[in-house]
């Protein structure tokens, strides 16, 4: 579904390289009364360097899909590959960095030592760890906060620290589960801008779960609209009409409005606005 929508951007390789491929992916939770179909026959291909947002109302399986990609959840049927491997093999190869809804920083570690946590686990030498922490903290604008403890930081700064932590070991894929969901809109705009620059400079493949239409359109190269009960993909919207280098101003452009309207239309068809 991405082959026909190759962006005209000359900087990208001519043939897109699929990084994540799901075929007929289903996940059913057995519960006491009746089984819940969290994911129903999902087919999705995500190419290298893509920024894909999964959007939909609560319970549409967007977080579940992200967790299946990360091997934090096991599908009931169907196949999924991450960089050509099973999700488990990809996890063991440390192919992705995961940013959770909450910062999930360890409160007894300083910001710097939180960022170096994955590197410590991977056995990176100490000097290298410190250099990389400094580099990635600078990338998220947290230079000077290395010695602070997480609770001394604002919510937005904590979430930036957790992004620096996910970037610290330079994974090819960045999986983000509503990382800015708990933040106020001004902080959120700011972090969206930082994130899109980060993505443009690093060229990582990003999968981003959100329930904000504006956020999805602003950040993404493609938007996957999902509907709940059972969790299905309703629409995949290409955003290559928008430039790759984005500023907050593009939200006023007709292209942006058109894509946002289509996302909203997709959600409406999925009865997301029903009571």
């Amino acid at each position, binding site marked *: 579904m991405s082959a026909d929508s190759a962006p005209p951007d000359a900087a990208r390789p001519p043939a897109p390289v699929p990084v994540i491929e799901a075929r007929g992916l289903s996940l059913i939770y057995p519960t006491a009364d009746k089984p819940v179909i969290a994911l129903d026959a999902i087919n999705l291909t995500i190419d290298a360097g893509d920024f894909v947002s999964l959007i939909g109302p609560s319970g549409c399986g967007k977080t579940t899909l992200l967790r299946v990609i*990360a091997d934090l959840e096991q599908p009931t049927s169907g196949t999924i590959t991450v960089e050509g491997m099973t999700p488990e093999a990809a*996890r*063991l190869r440390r192919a992705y960095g995961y940013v*959770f809804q909450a910062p*999930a920083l*360890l409160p007894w570690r300083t910001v710097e030592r939180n960022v170096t*946590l994955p590197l*410590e*686990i991977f056995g990176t030498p100490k000097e290298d760890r410190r250099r990389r922490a400094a580099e990635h903290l600078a990338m998220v604008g947290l230079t000077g906060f290395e010695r602070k403890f997480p*609770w001394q930081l604002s919510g937005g700064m904590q979430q930036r620290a957790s992004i620096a932590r996910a970037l610290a070991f330079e994974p090819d894929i960045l999986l983000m589960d509503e990382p800015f969901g708990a933040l106020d809109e001004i902080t959120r705009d700011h972090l969206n801008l930082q994130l899109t620059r980060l993505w443009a400079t690093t060229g990582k493949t990003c999968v981003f779960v959100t329930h904000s239409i504006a956020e999805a359109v602003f950040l993404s190269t493609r938007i996957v609209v999902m509907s709940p009960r059972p969790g299905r993909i309703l629409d995949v919207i290409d955003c290559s009409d928008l430039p790759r280098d984005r500023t907050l101003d593009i939200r006023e452009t007709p292209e942006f409005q058109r894509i946002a309207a289509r996302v909203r239309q997709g959600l409406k068809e999925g009865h997301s606005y029903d009571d």
Partner: protein
Amino acid sequence: MLRPSVLLPLAALVMPFGMTASDKVIFAFRDPVSLAGLLAVLGAAIFVRLSPERPAVEAGVSLLAAVLAAAAPLHLLGKGITLGAHAPGLWVMLAGAALALCRALGILSAGSWTGRKAVVAGLFGAALIYAWEAGVRGFAVPSILLPAPSAIFAVLGPQADLLWADFQQTVLKAVLRGYLMGCLAGFVVAVIADRVPFLARGLLPFGNLISAIPIVGIAPIMVMWFGFDWPSKAAVVVVVTFFPMLVNTLSGLAASDRLQMDLMRSYAAGYWRTLVTLRLPNALPFLFNALKINSTLALIGAIVAEFFGTPVVGMGFRISTEVSRMNLDIVWATILVAAVTGSVIYGVLTLAERTLTAWHPSARGRD
């Protein structure tokens, strides 16, 4: 003007302050020390009512008055005067002095200077010990019922060797070894039970059962198993400390939230790595909780266990034999040693906890 703080010393002025050996009732104006105390309490009460708002001066004056009044009963006792029911005026004056002290402590604890907590606690403790001393000696309480603090302190010196030998036997041998073994075993079994779920399910009801057994029940059995010397006491300590540690460690290991566990999984961190890097630090507040509970349980367990057979040394042995020999001052001195030991252990653990879990929300709020 007519407040209790003023009325009490005024009333004391016309009430008896004791009886001499020749059955003569004396009043405050016949004894300079008593009079000085009485006038100080009265003067301080009036000064506080009239003076402008100067808390530091008020606190100082009130404290000074309380100290002066406190000297009176000790001075009268030293002159061989009978107090008790013959000295209502003295007790009424001391009630006024207590009010003055309360006022001073109230002002001191409301301040914002460093060290005020220690000063207030110290003054309060000193007042309690003084009330004990004055009460016991003033009412001539038989020392078999309750010796005065001064009598207890007086035996500390001459009996130092005896108390030290008891301390070595009970605390250094039984309590410390039993405590370390019990806590370590509880911790290790909890870590194993955390990996093997049926162990936790099987052990916890069993643990509740063991915790319900009174120490007096297991102590004689441990003496039969491990003999009269310290190992049987250490065994009792192991039994009483094992399960609190087990239960707390299990709760602590469950304290890591799901996101943190997922994070470690996303790093492909193994079981031991996750345990050391994430779960044990999260469990630390629970571990310290168990260590603190156990520090008191261990001391009680070892002392009680010594009632059921011991070589002729040990704090429990000392208490049980000296009670039957009516040497209550040695009993109280031993109790004092036990109380100070327990407090020191608890204090050291609290200090370690504050240092190691300064990150925990419960510790962050402290000033």
